[in-house]
């Protein structure tokens, strides 16, 4: 089927705010005809070049490699130079609202201050730490299998779309965030790197580290380069155990507790798991909820705990398939 280039009429509402002159931000509406091949950046450029020269946004390479142009359209984080407007119309209809990645950090219009993003990025030492020979005699060979481990972590362009879509960042300013975790993994899985343990220690701190991720998959969904940060976060968790960096705390015991529970019952012993993770003292804080749950028949008595049929089979699997120790 042969098609010619289609066009559509849309209304675009753009977040405007000039920190020098405006007291409050506002939305300005523009009506445009867009074509099938237009990306969001084309829309912004047209507004800037044909309607309002003062509209400010970051852009540079315009082919998805510099990471400067990320914005939100109807709350979806996008790389402006990659996201096709027609795809957005399919999702949201013909009224598009373009916002900065984070409204609290706006400098001007769609330009935000990414200092928090970069500070956390720096915290994981986003570079190879190795004694590199000044005048090497031969290449430093890395095998395809070793490269495979780094996986897609290396494709990150630091656009910040994941970071400013992460719900934990919004409520916990200490949280290092998906992009920096993915970068940490990029080096902890690089066999030439010498700072693996140090990085794993940084990313496994309670409060700021990987254990504070709520596993919402927003970062995996939004990433325009398919870095899949939550997948890298999971691998960092695993590495902290593999490398003996994991300390015994409520989070690590919780993860390990699943194994014990499965081994004993097949299913979880939810109460037992919380007890194992929190310890007797930590348990106290859960008492009000536990009482409530008990009253409402949400806590089975030990003799009523569900057990899997074929429990012996599960025990055997846990025995032969376990690969991690704690």
């Amino acid at each position: 089927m042969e098609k010619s280039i289609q066009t559509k009429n849309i209304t675009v509402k753009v977040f405007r705010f000039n920190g020098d002159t405006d007291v409050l931000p506002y939305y300005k509406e523009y009506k445009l005809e867009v074509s099938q091949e237009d990306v969001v950046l084309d829309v912004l450029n047209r507004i800037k070049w044909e309607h309002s020269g003062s509209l400010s946004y970051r852009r540079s390479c315009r082919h998805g490699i510099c990471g400067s142009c990320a914005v939100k359209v109807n709350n979806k984080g996008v790389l402006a130079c990659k996201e096709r407007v027609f795809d957005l119309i399919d999702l949201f209809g013909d009224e598009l609202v373009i916002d900065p990645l984070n409204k609290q950090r706006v400098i001007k219009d769609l330009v935000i201050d990414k200092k928090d993003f970069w500070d956390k990025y720096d915290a994981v030492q986003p570079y190879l730490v190795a004694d590199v020979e000044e005048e090497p005699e031969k290449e430093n060979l890395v095998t395809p299998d070793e490269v495979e481990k780094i996986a897609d972590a290396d494709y990150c362009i630091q656009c910040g779309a994941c970071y400013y879509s992460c719900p934990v960042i919004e409520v916990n300013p200490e949280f290092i965030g998906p992009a920096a975790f993915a970068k940490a993994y990029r080096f902890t899985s690089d066999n030439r790197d010498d700072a693996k343990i140090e990085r794993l220690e940084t990313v496994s701190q309670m409060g700021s580290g990987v254990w504070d991720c709520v596993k919402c998959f927003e970062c995996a969904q939004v990433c325009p380069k398919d870095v899949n940060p939550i997948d890298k976060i999971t691998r960092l968790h695993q590495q902290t155990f593999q490398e003996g960096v994991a300390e015994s705390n409520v989070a690590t015991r919780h993860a390990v507790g699943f194994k014990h529970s499965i081994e004993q019952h097949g299913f979880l012993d939810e109460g037992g798991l919380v007890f194992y993770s929190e310890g007797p003292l930590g348990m106290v804080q859960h008492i009000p909820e536990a009482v409530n749950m008990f009253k409402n028949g949400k806590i089975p008595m030990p003799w009523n705990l569900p057990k899997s049929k074929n429990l012996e089979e599960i025990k055997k699997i846990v025995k032969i398939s376990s690969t991690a120790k704690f």
Partner: protein
Amino acid sequence: MAKKLRYALYTGCTAKESTPELLKSTLAVAEKLGIELDIIEEASCCGASHLQDFDDHLSLVLNARNLCYAESREAPMVTLCNTCQLNVSMTKNRLDFDNKLKDRVNQDLSEVGLEYKGVSDVKHFLYAILEDYGLENLKKKIVKPLKNFNVAPFYGCHNIRPSSLHGKNNGGENPYVPNSLDQLIEACGGKPVDYEEKNKCCGFHADLQAPETANKLSGNALTGAVDADADFMVTPCPLCHLNLDVKQKKAGEAVGREVNIPVLHLPQVIGLALGIEPEKLGLNHHVVKAVYF
């Protein structure tokens, strides 16, 4: 309907323990709709993304084993929990696309006489109703429409994100503007309300180590629904349910509000509209009682 629907039901842990009402209501609804659910009693926990943090291989083998029992029933697997859905389908996806990995896993499974083949699909109950049973068919069976109720859908993360994984088993739900639950609420006669947090995270998976984070996220969701004038919320995920119902008080406190809003499981809402008595749907198990029913 041409053929009777039949699934291998993977209950997960929560529906057997802290949200028994979920299993109860699911079975009641299935019976009423004539859907056959064959419970996989041999199954183990899916690892809930936590075992995955510790031991990737073990969690793969355990999930593959669970899938084997759906395969031996020659039925697609149906799940009741978003996180089960995520972990099972992530396992399936990895094994189906990586033969080497599949061989490794099957080597372990062969020790207990099993083999993962990859022939059973895995679907959340929500999408089994929506995609397989069909909303039109459901509408025909509604006898007690939830008229005059404003209902806040709460989707939960692991059914909609990442869409690259879930897309083919959730009708291509768009994670930014999901609408399956909205449609279901409408089919049951209720009025879905729109609010910003409906596709956001409840924070469950960091409950123990970062309760402030989890409570704030749940608190935002609850107040979002309240402010949108919802009479109650509905979720397809028992873990979201725990955070929104059992921990409602703390969640409200975390965002400086007193909230009091019932949260129903998806099959409870369907069940009510089908005219099933509230007790059979386990409404009595909730901490915040759904006083309307």
